């Protein structure tokens, strides 16, 4: 069992009955989170960048935009329609990852280092500069819980963090769960994976978050869930 399976379970836990959820490119963990929530019986609507509406089954490939990866849909819903839905305030859940996220919830998918002469040119933020603010709830995953990813101030604000009005932002990492607190305007620590020490969580971040007591204990993935994820993603794209 790898860390990403726990992260996917933490993401899946954010979905509720009736949600309309969208997944973008390079988002296999998000597709698997939707699949896992449905496997538990959570009744969500699923639209995605592959434009296959309400697939019945999944076979993960290296592309979450692969229309062959989403099996037996009920139709095609194009991304323009999904984005319009979000602009009308009706998209419940959008998933993102980022290279950096900071204390204020700002996220960076643009560059590491200076914008004009970057150390690393990242792929760009795609929908973030808009959906990160316009979806009702954001579920973010980080592959790495570290001072590199959880920074005091992002090198570049591809998308600004939530405002006091919204949206709700939850971040799932291999160690913990953080949420944006609308009163303080900062990320707070709200959950830990069992067996993870709180100091280990905080020492591996470049800023010290407040802690919302009582911290919830995040359940690790079960054998049955792992088997389910393994059936959908036998080649382990989620670990890449």
């Amino acid at each position, binding site marked *: 069992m790898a860390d990403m399976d726990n992260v996917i379970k933490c993401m899946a836990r954010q979905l509720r009955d009736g949600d309309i959820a969208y997944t973008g490119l390079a988002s296999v963990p998000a597709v698997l989170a939707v699949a896992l929530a449905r496997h538990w019986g959570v009744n969500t609507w699923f639209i995605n960048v592959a434009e296959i509406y309400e697939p019945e089954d999944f076979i993960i490939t290296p592309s979450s935009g*692969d229309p062959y990866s989403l099996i037996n849909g009920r139709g*095609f819903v194009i991304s323009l329609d999904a984005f319009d839905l979000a602009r009308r305030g009706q998209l419940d859940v959008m998933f993102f990852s980022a290279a950096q996220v900071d204390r204020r919830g700002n996220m960076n998918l643009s560059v590491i280092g200076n914008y004009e002469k970057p150390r690393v040119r990242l792929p760009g933020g795609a929908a973030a500069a*808009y959906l990160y603010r316009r979806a009702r709830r954001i579920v973010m995953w980080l592959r790495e819980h570290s001072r590199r990813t959880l920074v005091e101030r992002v090198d570049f604000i591809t998308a600004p963090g939530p405002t006091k009005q919204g949206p709700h932002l939850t971040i799932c990492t291999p160690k913990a769960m953080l949420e944006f607190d609308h009163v303080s305007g900062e990320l707070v620590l709200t959950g830990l994976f069992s067996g993870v020490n709180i100091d280990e969580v905080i020492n591996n971040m470049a800023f010290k978050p407040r802690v919302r007591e009582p911290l919830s204990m995040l359940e690790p993935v079960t054998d049955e869930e792992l088997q389910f994820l393994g059936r959908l993603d036998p080649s382990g794209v989620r670990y890449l």
Partner: protein
Amino acid sequence: MARNKLMSINEALDLINDGDEIAIGGMSFHRNPMSMAIAIVKSNKRDLALVDREPGLAFDLLTISGRVKRIRAAMVTFEHFGIAPGFRRMVEGGEVEFVEDVCEGVMAGLRAGAYGLPFMPSAIALDSDLVPLNVKRGIWKVTKDPFNDQELVVVKAIRPDVALVHVHKADERGDVEIYGPKYEDLLKIQAARKAIVTAEEIVSEDYFRDHPERLTIPGFMVTAVVHSPRGAWPTSMYGYYKADYEIIKKYFDSVKAGLSIEKVLEVFTHG
């Protein structure tokens, strides 16, 4: 009734001028106009600009061809392989100018272009660091909603010179069927001054009369039709063939290793 638009890939290439801005159809590793992209790489075109929202293989290949001076996109990713390798190499090296846009900006710009409007309002977050950059580039403006005085970002129309889109079926009049995912390809065809479609199959006059519900794009929007079976390969063509991830991985590794464009092209000829 209409003029026959069927032509060879080289005749279609003649429709593209040096300096043209080209909108690329498809997305990521799916329904890319690969046969046209490879033809452009092998041509002597110069100073091209590319625009797409979430481009993939064709866009990245063109980026390293030496024929492209500027690219505009919202995200240039090879998804779970990593950052698009040609994009990263050429942009970090300063050889290609990257206009970093966002999905909302490309969609709004293409809508304005397709709708014949000068600009389109958007929901781009005002406090993204991209706002001052793209205002400076002249493609966005911060203005006020005339009805309630609230600030918003408006996006200037995108009117590419050429759109390249690979499709399932076309007739010689330019009537087109795209099955399944469409992305923004209809907007690209409408917004562009010339639309070149490559098609898996050329169908007879009767096809769309027999199946009117299958018409995706009417012929008067299309400039040229090229018969190009497996023209999206190694990207997927929904309903016809899956993406060939082994070839895509070979491409990724070749570009990352710094191989020349000639060597990289061999990935596709020996596929």
